[in-house]
Structure formats: structure tokens, C-alpha cells
């Protein structure tokens, strides 16, 4: 089963994302939550897209909306609701959070 990686910090703590990308395998999913969603802003995502090409990228829609950055997002990142977050956890193994 593919792993789910969760990142909840923005480029202020970029090592969370760097370590995540280092440990993620092809076909894994990376979910950006909380301030992690700022990584999905198009020019920010462009900076990591090369290393991110073989993983699936999702962001929590609630967190995107509360930050007012919906129009800035990369099209390569999928917005999901909290219920879909639960589904991702259930359908992936292991679930890995990066701090």
C-alpha cells in the first residue's frame, strides 16, 4: 500500500517538506494541511515540482479558503475536503507526518 505523507508547515520550515520528499516513494500521496497549503501556491509549487513529479499532491480546501489563496493555487494540486482526508488515511499505509 502506498504511504500518505502529511506536511503542515510552510516554507518557513522547509525542511519538513524536504525530508518528506526525501522519504516519499513513487505513487505515495503528499497532503498539505494548515500552513502547509502555502506550498501549493503556483510559483512556490513550481519550485518543488521537479522533485514532486512522481507523487500525488492534495491540499485541504478548508485551509486554502481560510487563507484566501484559492486563485493562486497550482493546477497540479487537488483540493479535498476533510472527509476525503479521512479516506486518504484509510486507504494509505503508513501515514507519516513531517514536522
Amino acid at each position, binding site marked *: 500500500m502506498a504511504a500518505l505523507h*502529511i506536511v*503542515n*508547515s510552510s516554507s518557513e520550515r522547509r525542511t*519538513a517538506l524536504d525530508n518528506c520528499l526525501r522519504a516519499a516513494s513513487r505513487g505515495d500521496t503528499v497532503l498539505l*494541511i*494548515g*500552513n502547509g497549503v502555502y506550498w501549493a501556491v503556483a510559483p512556490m509549487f513550481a519550485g518543488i515540482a521537479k522533485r514532486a513529479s512522481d507523487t500525488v499532491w492534495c491540499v*485541504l480546501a*478548508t*485551509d486554502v479558503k481560510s487563507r484566501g489563496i484559492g486563485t493562486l493555487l497550482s493546477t497540479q494540486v487537488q483540493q479535498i*475536503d*476533510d*472527509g476525503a*482526508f*479521512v*479516506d486518504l*488515511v*484509510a486507504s494509505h*499505509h503508513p*501515514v507519516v*507526518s*513531517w*514536522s
Partner: protein
Amino acid sequence: MNFAIAIHGDAATSESPRLALRFARAAIAKGHRIHRVFFYHAGVSVANSLVVQPQGEADTAAEWAAFAKEHGVELAVCVAAALRRGVLGQDDATRYERAVANVNPVFQIVGLGQMIEAAISADRFVTFCA
């Protein structure tokens, strides 16, 4: 499925207690169970009953307490992490000669073994980092 949740972020400045609450609500709504919610590191601050939330701001600690009561979910706080951060149960206050206790009684004060137990007996263990 049976989920265990760990929360590492503090109540005042981290979003992780709220992110975890949203996850827990969505999990229950989908028919899953929550084995235990474990507050570790700065997360223990969620159990501090002396916090005064400014008006107009969400009170995530109160929402966690209400959620736990409604769905019978265990909220566990690591005793060692709580002592370091000044969150004391009555037993701790007596043992360490502090005048007062301040833990919200909805939270169980437990040892770290309860986190490992939750992590290995649940189907999925999800950590919400600071």
C-alpha cells in the same frame, strides 16, 4: 477503521489541535472509531483550564472537550510533558507541593505508554505536528 491521533501543537499558536479536531469529526461522520487522542509535547496546553480565550476567537479546547463527551472519545495527556509545562492534575499538585491544580478534568493524565499502545493497536496512527 480504528484511528489513534497524536497532537503536538499548542493551543494558543499552533493550528494542529484544530486540524486534528476537524479530522476526528470527519472520521466519526464516516463511521470510523477513535481509539484515543494523545496530547504530547506542547499539545498538553490544550488541557490547561486556566486559558482565557479572547472573545470572538474559536475555543478549540472547549470544542475538543464537547466532542469527546458526545462521542465517548478518550483524551489523554502525557504526564511528563504536562508537568514540564505547568499543567497539573490534583495528584500532581499535591505530590509536587503546588497550591493548585489546573487540568481540565475531561482529560486523562497518563503515561507515554498509552501513546505507544494507541499507535500499535489502532489501524492508523495520525500525528498532527506542531
